[in-house]
């Protein structure tokens, strides 16, 4: 019997949180269910675009953090 997948299952799948067995079943379903595949593509494109919002802190701040660590000597 073919398992029915929800939109929430797709979100879990995109973030690698679906258990292995369910992930494999979903991948099978994506091959035959056009509507599910389209929903998955839409969510995937939005997810991929989010990576463009990543920003880097300045080198000055990064170096300050690394330098600070060298001055700290705490012991358990």
């Amino acid at each position: 019997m073919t398992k029915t997948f929800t939109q929430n299952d797709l979100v879990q799948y995109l973030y690698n949180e679906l258990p292995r067995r369910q992930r494999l079943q979903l991948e099978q379903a994506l091959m035959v269910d056009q509507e599910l595949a389209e929903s998955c593509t839409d969510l995937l494109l939005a997810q991929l675009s989010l990576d463009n919002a990543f920003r880097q802190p300045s080198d000055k701040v990064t170096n300050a953090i690394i330098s600070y660590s060298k001055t700290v000597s705490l012991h358990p």
Partner: protein
Amino acid sequence: MNIVQLSDSALVTSYIAGNESAFEELVNRHKSKVFTTILLIVKDTYTAEDLLQETFVKAIHTMKSGRYNEEGKFSSWICRIAHNLAIDYFRREKRSPMITLEDGSNVFNTLSFSEESVESIRIKEETHARLRELIQLLPPAQKEVLIMRHYADMSFQEIAEATGVSINTALGRMRYALINLRKKMSNDIAAYDKNLYSE
């Protein structure tokens, strides 16, 4: 083994044993994720840099005093510290701070491909800035889950616990956030095309 090939867990162990290079690698590996998580909440580059330092200072003290609990992922742990600090800051301010996202930034700071033309860098940076604006326009509950999952690397279970909702609600909010974002981006493209062809 080269330090860049080590897992986060191995780096933490090495750092606690006194290897500062391991910490440097951890910082370089996660600074963007932590910084972006904070920035999307406080919306101010300078404040975000202050809170980034505060986040790592807390992490340094926790690890060097032997209080680091090796249960979850390092990235989730550090992002959770960052998220809590950013939320605390936001609540203290009691208002949405002025957006200085682009004013306080150095374009070369965000790009690793300096051989691109100035024009393509500008267009890319404008697009990315627009994306950050669109994220800000999402309903608060959706924006919160999106930041926690995509940038702070928290699992949906962790998000559900942190926000006091069921995992299905957290998943639903993430789904709507992605759908809304995609719609807003499509509308942007449609508006751009309309302007372009009406000239």
